[in-house]
């Protein structure tokens, strides 16, 4: 029915989309773990990052390498600004206030972008060295595909090690489990939260470049559904779990692409619905997500 090459090819596309979801999910899961905040504004970071690289490297012609490094700095800064301007004052208040604020900030950023860059999609042209075509017997891919997969895995490993081994990472996990006791240990909670926002946002903004380079087109609203799906990945993997977020991202990416590639064409338009069907299915079988721990009730 389908050749092995075709299935492998599509799986690879799914893995690439999965990389993007996973990287976004990382930032969302650590922030959720500590603040119980579904940070919708996180999705805006991928859009901001994509346009940032567009302006730096395509409009102004700086080398792409420079654009990539600058977008990491830009994302970090935006994360810090969001943390301090949007959320810090609301801490200790009802969790729903944080949620509404994050939706508000997402909407603000999206509309702001719509105003300054226009509602039209932008073509994201990358230099030739990112578009070298490789053909093997089973797979055809571009250098950018390889770059996305390799650097995503590198980021994920680095991030996991940071969370697992570093002093700040341990403090982050402690804060996620019990904020009050973490404070008693002398951990400055605000600092831990800022680090979570900065790292997550830097990664998300960087992911914006992947999106542009892979799909060749960026638009002011690209972050919305992507952000929502990244959060679905977080929930599927188990809220608050870093390996879970990555796993959830890959499951979602691969399932989304394969559902389009392998199901009859008339199902293609349901690709987003399929993502949510997976969510519902996973939650029915394991309510805490694949790698999630049962949530204790927080007083």
């Amino acid at each position, binding site marked *: 029915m389908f050749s092995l090459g075709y299935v492998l090819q599509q799986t690879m596309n799914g893995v690439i989309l999965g990389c993007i979801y996973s990287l976004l999910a990382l930032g969302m899961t650590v922030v959720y773990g500590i603040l119980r905040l579904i940070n919708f504004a996180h999705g805006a970071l991928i859009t901001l990052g994509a346009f940032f690289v567009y302006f730096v490297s395509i409009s102004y012609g700086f080398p792409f390498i420079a654009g990539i490094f600058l977008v990491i700095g830009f994302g970090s800064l935006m994360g810090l600004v969001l943390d301090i301007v949007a959320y810090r004052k609301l801490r200790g208040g009802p969790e729903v206030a944080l949620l509404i604020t994050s939706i508000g900030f997402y909407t603000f950023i999206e509309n702001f972008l719509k105003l300054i860059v226009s509602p039209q999609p932008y073509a994201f042209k990358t230099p030739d060295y990112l578009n070298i075509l490789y053909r093997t017997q089973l797979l055809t891919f571009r250098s950018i595909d390889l770059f996305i997969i390799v650097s995503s895995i590198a980021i994920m490993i680095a991030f996991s090690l940071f969370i697992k081994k570093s*002093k700040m990472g*341990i*403090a982050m*996990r*402690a804060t996620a*489990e*019990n904020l*009050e*006791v*973490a*404070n*008693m*240990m*002398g*951990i*400055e909670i605000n600092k831990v939260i800022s680090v979570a926002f900065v790292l997550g946002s830097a990664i998300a903004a960087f992911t914006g470049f992947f999106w542009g380079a892979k799909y060749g087109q960026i638009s002011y609203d690209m972050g919305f559904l992507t952000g929502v799906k990244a959060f679905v990945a977080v929930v599927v993997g188990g809220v608050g779990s870093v390996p879970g977020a990555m796993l959830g991202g890959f499951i979602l990416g691969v399932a989304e692409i394969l559902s389009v590639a392998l199901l009859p064409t008339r199902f293609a338009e349901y690709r987003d619905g399929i993502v949510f069907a997976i969510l519902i299915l996973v939650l029915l079988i394991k309510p805490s997500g694949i790698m999630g*721990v049962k949530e204790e009730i927080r007083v």
Partner: protein
Amino acid sequence: MIPLLKVKNLSVKYGVIPALQDISIEVKTGQIVSLIGANGAGKTTTLKTIMGILKPVNGSIVYRDEDITRMPTPQRVRKEICLVPEGRGIFNRLTVRENLFLGAYHRSDEQEINSDLEKSYSLFPRLKERENQIAGTLSGGEQQMLAIGRGLMSRPKLMLLDEPSLGLAPLVVRELYELIQEILKQGVTILLVEQNATMAIRVSNYVYLIETGNVKLEGIPKEIESLEDVRKVYLGG
């Protein structure tokens, strides 16, 4: 002698509900001072306020001659105060080693931290065996040892112990109290909160009886024990 800790006219409210009203207590260096009293009397609230987790509406906390009433908690930790919270308050999802390590969070003397870690393990050999285990899998007694061990990792001058014997078997409680006296010998001053008053009074130098947010009685253990009312209500006859 100047007290290590002097709490004066402290009042704390939960919303509009008063939790502490004009509490004054003193803890002298090298002593064990205990706060006893019924559930909900305000003992835990007192400790949390000394640690800066709760903010007082009134009164002052002076520690080593310095007013720390408005100081943020992490700074108090650096001033060598530590709170071993009620119900252990260990990080269940972290390993034993990570828990201990977090006790020393404010310190940066890595070699000293490692030697303190070894010291904790020699004090609590069972923690060494379970070093890489998730703390949530420990028994109640082991969790309490971990909480105290974690507290010691911060090298405190003043340790606030909240209900350490809660939910522990009598044999473990005895072991625990031996440990508390050992900690005292190492130069750590202890402010102890207990519902299990018999044990607490036995090891203390001075006792405060707290009732509905107030100091009802205070004195040396002998005086307190000899009071008929106290015996009946708090010491089980």
